[in-house]
């Protein structure tokens, strides 16, 4: 079986949904953050597939940028989460809720 564009897109959609489910359901900030990266990965899969099937390199260029930006974001994000963990001794979202309505 030769994979078609649809296969890639379905995979991408699945990964995106798994990521979203993780964001909404897991309680630890770190895991939530990993799930967010998963959502970005879904876009990367789709972009690479579109590039391949559309015969255009633009998508792959964007893939590189997404990877780089995600790395920068992760660096900053983990720094914040680690600082928060050191301060509060927890990374559970429901215990980090001092700012509310």
């Amino acid at each position, binding site marked *: 079986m030769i994979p078609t564009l649809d296969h890639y897109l379905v995979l991408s959609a699945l990964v995106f949904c798994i990521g979203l489910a993780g964001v909404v359901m897991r309680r630890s900030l770190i895991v939530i953050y990993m799930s967010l990266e998963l959502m970005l990965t879904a876009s990367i899969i789709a972009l690479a597939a579109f590039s391949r099937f559309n015969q255009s390199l633009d998508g792959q260029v964007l893939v*590189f940028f997404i*990877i*780089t930006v995600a*790395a*920068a974001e*992760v*660096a900053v994000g983990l720094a914040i989460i*680690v600082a928060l963990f050191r301060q509060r001794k927890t990374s559970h979202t429901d215990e980090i809720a001092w700012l509310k309505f």
Partner: protein
Amino acid sequence: MMQEYFAALVQVAAAAVVAGGALAASVILGKIGARSKAKDTPYECGLNPEGNSNPRFSVKFYLIAMLFILFDIEIVFLYPWAVVYADMVKESWVIFGSMALFQLILAVGFVYEFKKGALDWSR
């Protein structure tokens, strides 16, 4: 009239089956066999686990790893650049200059982290 709602009906049915199925499966499958303490351990037959399952590392490992990734990831721009370099440089030196500028900016970042003592292991 009813046909318009048929799709929605199927959707509702599918959602119910999936949700109910997952619950039912866990109840049914979870009850297979008797439960005991041994069954709940990570390795049912083998050595008893010792200590915490997720030992804590020094944050320095994390810091170094993070900094490594930050600089490492820039390689993705170097690969495509290297592939087309030989052809493009014949036309103009812009391709060289732009990468040089990029590396220069990266170098500033590197000097910055060095000066801030981020790479100083003993600190």
